[in-house]
């Protein structure tokens, strides 16, 4: 009986940290995924909005739609700032937007330089990098990770 009690204490001493670690991992992983999802939405919407930045002179010359590189990139950065500003744990939206990688692809077919996806229509490709701070995993020294989110949007029928 006494031996059984000692085994329980041993279990408690050994398993409790493991359980706590598992719990922390679950919580922070969920937060990480939620943040990744929010960031993905933010980048997606910014690129979709920027994909309306049509090169008007080219349109009149050819009757075809393609993106104005300057206008589309500016629009993408503008909407990145707007979308990131309302998100939790994003400390410097403007800095992230300014540092975002943005590529305008008007000659298709092409490959998205950030996602590797195939592009058949004029598109804007964007990629942001932002740190994500863990809530619980810091106990074991894992304070944050760098999140890289990429998305693209194209003009298509």
């Amino acid at each position, binding site marked *: 009986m006494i031996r059984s009690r000692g085994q329980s204490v041993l279990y408690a001493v050994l398993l409790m940290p493991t359980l706590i670690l598992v719990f922390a991992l679950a919580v922070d992983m969920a937060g990480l995924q939620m943040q990744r999802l929010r960031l993905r939405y933010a980048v*997606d919407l910014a*690129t*979709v*909005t*920027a*994909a*309306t930045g*049509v090169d*008007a*002179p080219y*349109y*009149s*010359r*050819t*009757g*075809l*739609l393609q993106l104005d590189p300057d206008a589309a990139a500016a629009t993408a950065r503008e909407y990145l700032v707007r979308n990131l500003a309302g998100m939790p744990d994003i400390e410097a939206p403007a800095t992230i937007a300014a540092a975002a990688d943005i590529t305008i692809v008007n000659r298709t077919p092409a490959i*998205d330089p950030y996602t590797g*996806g195939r*592009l058949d229509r004029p*598109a804007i490709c964007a990629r942001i990098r932002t740190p994500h701070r863990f809530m619980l995993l810091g106990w074991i020294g894992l304070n944050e990770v760098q999140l890289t989110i990429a*998305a*693209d*949007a*194209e*003009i*298509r*029928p």
Partner: protein
Amino acid sequence: MKGAASVGLSVLLLATAATDGHGLGATTATVSITAVSGYAGHAFVYAQVSDSTFAYPAPTGTGHQSPFFSEWVAQPVAIGSCPWIWAVYVFDRATKVQINAPPPTAPQPNFGTTTSVCAGPSTTPVDQPSQADASARLDLDLQVTVSPAASTAGSTSLVSAAISSALTQDLNLYLNMAIEDWSVTNWAIDFGDGQTRTLSGPVGTSIQVGHIYQTAGRYEARAVASISGRAQAAVYDRYGTVHLLHRAFSVQVGNRALATAVARPLRSYLPPHVNVGVVPYLGPETGTGSPTPFRHIDVLRGALTTLSVHLLIAREGLLLVDGRPTGFGRSRLTAWRFDGSLSDAPPGSGTIPGTPRGAGEPMRLQWNSPDPIVRGQLQDYGVPVALYVETRFPDGHVASYVILSSFSVSVNFAAQSG
């Protein structure tokens, strides 16, 4: 030499004087007229006055109806049989120009006239030899032309006729026969195709009449001028009194000309093959030089698109003459009409269907829905447009056409890839 000439002249004058006439109170002259009509371009009138008994020279001075007058000047020649002569100087009454001046090479004695008579104390200027006849001849030539000689059936040809005349008349010292008073009283024109025309009243010696030969063929146009006039003979008695004798005459002169009317070429005008082309603008139309119009364009969903409408000519209008291509026309867009349904443009900003618009007016359309999917495939929107085209052909003919055409639109929108 000079003496021999004088003797010869005197003998001649005396011989002439030997046939002296005698005075008469009234003239016994007769005037005959011969008018010969001709229909091959020539006619003439011949008038003759005859007075085999008495005829005397016209006296000096005015008051006489002769176109000439004469002056008699006594000239001594110192020949026994004819010690002096009458030198007769005859002048045109209108111009005062002497008409019987001798040539420079005339033999002596030269008194400045070719007319002289030996005049003795018992001889007077009016007691001179008679002249039996005087005549006048009026030649009439008629020329008829048709211009152009070869015309197109249905076009106007000009039939022209002109009379030219030549008058030869004796206006001498003793008897005058003149034809100076004549005119055309009537023109009759037979165009040769069954139609005729008559011009009456005061008509001139030339006419021009337009005529249309309706069918192809060769025609003989004839013109006949009816001419009336009178001849005047002037006879002088021994007292210098003029007696005028008038005789009316009428004559016809005709001629013909060939006219050719060729069949009117059958012209037909083929309309141009054209399509509508558009140049898109996002926002207001901007001047970009000479943009290339398109039959298919992309548009951005939800964006009001401005379209300038142009004519895409696949083949110009063609002029056919007798079935053969002769030349291309030049077409231009004068207006257009949007025949589609009301677009998604905001109220008051889009083009209303069914209303003709000027060629320079922009079309404004908007699509808020993406391309429809038919049998699993995206299908473009068709935009029907009626084109108002004006074509000017090489012969100046201008034709207007309303040509139905359309262009296609692919509605694009921004979306995530994949």
